[in-house]
């Protein structure tokens, strides 16, 4: 394997996408498949996995030390990125995308490369709907908000009954794990779990498949290397939707 030191990139633009989500554009394009991620080094703080929302951007919600430090950065500041890592979404034929919250970000490259036909987009409230305008330009968009301020009043999973799953070769999903598990349950009930493609989030330290911190039960699959995208039939009966591990390796409910 070749050297993979973090590549220095300068932040060239910071876009406020929603009140809680920002896109950080940087001065280097990373050749990646939709759904692949990079390890983002925030100097002096930490390094965290982030989905690429375009070849030269990450889209981030403030959730911890590293993301908080990113939110305090300015145009011109340097961060390090290594990657792209992971398998990404591999699609063929018609694609349904289902995204919730900041989980829409790894699905955006499917949209911008013309590989998503229909997109079910969910958020807590209208102002938190991520990338709605860009998705609407390239795909059929259906929206749900928890508080009913836009689109369907309720969960994005409730929009699935409005599409014909038989129309789609695969259903690509990313969002909070509870939401993704609800989608998997619907696909399983409809007998098409194997057409689901779920992008998992697990605690990662190395990103390259050696440390084991992101391994899942019961197969010992590495989210960083064998994933982060797994087909639904693999996830049935797994820890998915039930628990995940923290930095110490201890299990916690999701």
């Amino acid at each position, binding site marked *: 394997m070749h050297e993979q*030191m973090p590549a*220095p990139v300068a932040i060239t633009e910071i876009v406020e996408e929603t009140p809680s989500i920002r896109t950080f554009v940087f001065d280097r394009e990373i050749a990646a498949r939709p759904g692949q991620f990079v390890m983002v080094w925030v100097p002096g703080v930490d390094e965290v996995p982030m989905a690429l929302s375009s070849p030269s951007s990450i889209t981030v919600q403030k959730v911890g030390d590293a993301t908080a430090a990113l939110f305090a950065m300015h145009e011109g500041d340097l961060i390090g990125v290594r990657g792209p890592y992971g398998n990404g979404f591999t699609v063929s034929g018609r694609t349904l995308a289902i995204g919730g919250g900041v989980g829409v970000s790894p699905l955006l490259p499917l949209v911008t490369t013309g590989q998503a036909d229909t997109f079910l987009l969910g958020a807590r409230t209208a102002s938190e709907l991520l990338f709605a305008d860009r998705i609407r330009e390239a795909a059929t968009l259906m929206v749900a908000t928890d508080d009913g301020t836009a689109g369907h009043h309720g969960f994005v999973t409730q929009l699935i009954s409005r599409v014909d799953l038989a129309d789609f070769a695969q259903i690509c999903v990313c969002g909070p794990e509870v939401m993704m598990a609800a989608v998997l349950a619907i696909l399983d009930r409809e007998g098409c779990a194997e057409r689901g493609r779920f992008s998992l989030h697990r605690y990662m*330290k190395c990103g390259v498949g050696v*440390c*084991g911190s992101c*391994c899942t039960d019961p197969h010992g699959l*590495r989210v960083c290397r064998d994933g982060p995208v797994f087909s639904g039939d693999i996830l049935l009966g797994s820890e998915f939707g039930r628990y995940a591990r*923290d930095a110490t390796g201890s299990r916690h409910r999701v």
Partner: protein
Amino acid sequence: MVTLYPGPVEVGGIRLRNHLLLAAGILGTTGASLARILASGAGGVVTKSIGPSPKEGHPGPCLIVVDGGIINAMGLPNPSAAFTEELAALQGEPVVVSIFGGTPEEFRTVAGWFAGRASGLELNLSCPHAEGYGAAIGSDPALVEECTRAAASYGVPTWVKLTPNVANIGEIGAAAERGGATAVVAVNTVKAMRISTALRRPVLGNRFGGLSGKAIFPVAVRCVYDLYEACSIPVIGCGGISTADNVVELMMAGASAVEIGSAVIDDIDVFSAIAKDLYGPDGVDAQEIVGCAHA
């Protein structure tokens, strides 16, 4: 190349399916990942190092891939006693639990959690980047002897993993043997660091870490060779092994078995790939080649 006769072996009191073990710290966080490696052809597995209290490890970056290897500064993340749950599904399998502590008493405590629940223990007296643990203890022969004696007091097979970052590794190996070790393992990673020239700072969150992978294979050969001279207990070779010929070379230096870690970055099925080249029905008994380079 020499090939070996296939079959189970006993090394340092532990029965293995073959001579190839998964090294500590690699894919050893969960029972499921350990089971996956066993299923893919490893003769045994060594877990992530488990210590006296839960640890989150160092801030990232924790690992960088460099030419010829990997530099890591994970910082011994582990769930401590809760790890016993991960072993539940591995009962009867060739699993060695790597343990660490800051004092002989801590080693005794942690060893007690796993005595009887695993095939044996491997004492981490060699991690180069955890203050107060690992190599901080493993470079002092008297402390190595005491910590080994504390863990070995349960009567279970006790391997001691040594650091190459010392002037005389043979002296440390002899201390482990006096303390009751049933085998010594050499080597852990070599202290190393890289700096981002663009950011003008060390890359790893901990500033420095330990180098593993092909780059350190010659260091491992030298250390195993020295330990074979200094100790009468088996030596287990570790450090940069990625081919069957590497295994044979370390055995000729004196290793009775080997641990493989960084090579999984290129191929998670490296154990079956190496076994395919290493073993054959016309192969020799390993005893014929272990230490033969000392003649």
